């Protein structure tokens, strides 16, 4: 069976691409990214701010047992409804430099769509380090799910 989510990270390049096909109309996928209440539900994080517009900004944080364990923020540069979001992404309290993300939403049929996320890193080394820590961006993922992922590393 073909995988619905694909990652393309070419050797020696400071970028990576994530591609996903959804059984959802493009409007709903875009909405999941642009409305705080929905974003919180699928990302499992708390949205502090989400200014879904050109020159808007966003911030979110994830807590565990009362302590904030992950914070990230960024600025939105382009916001075209049901088409694209261009934004920066920065993890707070880490030495990872800000990254640039191009999100493209594409209608496939009335009921299906494709999301392509191109992420540009400051260097090849930072890209590779991020890949080595799958929990960096998914730090809030369900506990047992994380264990599965970690087990598969061994």
């Amino acid at each position: 069976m073909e995988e619905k989510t694909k990652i393309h990270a070419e050797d020696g390049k400071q970028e990576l691409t994530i591609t996903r096909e959804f059984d959802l109309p493009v409007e709903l996928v875009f909405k999941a990214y642009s409305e705080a209440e929905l974003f919180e539900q699928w990302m499992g994080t708390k949205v502090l701010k989400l200014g879904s517009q050109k020159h808007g900004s966003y911030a979110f944080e994830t807590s565990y047992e009362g302590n904030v364990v992950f914070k990230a923020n960024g600025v939105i540069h382009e916001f075209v409804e049901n088409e694209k979001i261009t934004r920066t992404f920065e993890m707070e309290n880490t030495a990872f430099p800000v990254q640039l993300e191009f999100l493209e939403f594409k209608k496939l049929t009335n009921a299906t769509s494709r999301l392509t996320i191109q992420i540009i890193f400051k260097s090849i080394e930072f890209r590779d380090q991020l890949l080595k820590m799958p929990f960096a961006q998914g730090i809030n993922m369900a506990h047992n799910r994380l264990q599965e992922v970690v087990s598969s590393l061994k």
Partner: protein
Amino acid sequence: MNLRRDVFQAIADPTRRSILLLLTTQSMTAGAIASNFDTARPTVSKHLQILTECELLRQEQQGREIYYHFNPNKMKEIAEFIEPFRQMWDTKFNKLEEVMKNYKKE
């Protein structure tokens, strides 16, 4: 000592994951690490001890200070890391699909 199980347990804790993330690109003293958390200093020390024991961190004495380094040798080649990264996003996107399918029904 069962090293595999220890690495597994080390990464299962969100605070320890935060510490690893903090140390991915820089080495720091215990005090500097602790200042990033609301957690009590002895708790952070305990986390550092566990991470060091399972070799995810290395200690290095520099003058009077001990610096903690992330140990990349514990990690495998990048190609092997794409799959966990992919699974992480796949899980998130499956959740997105589920959330939006329910939203549509409402």
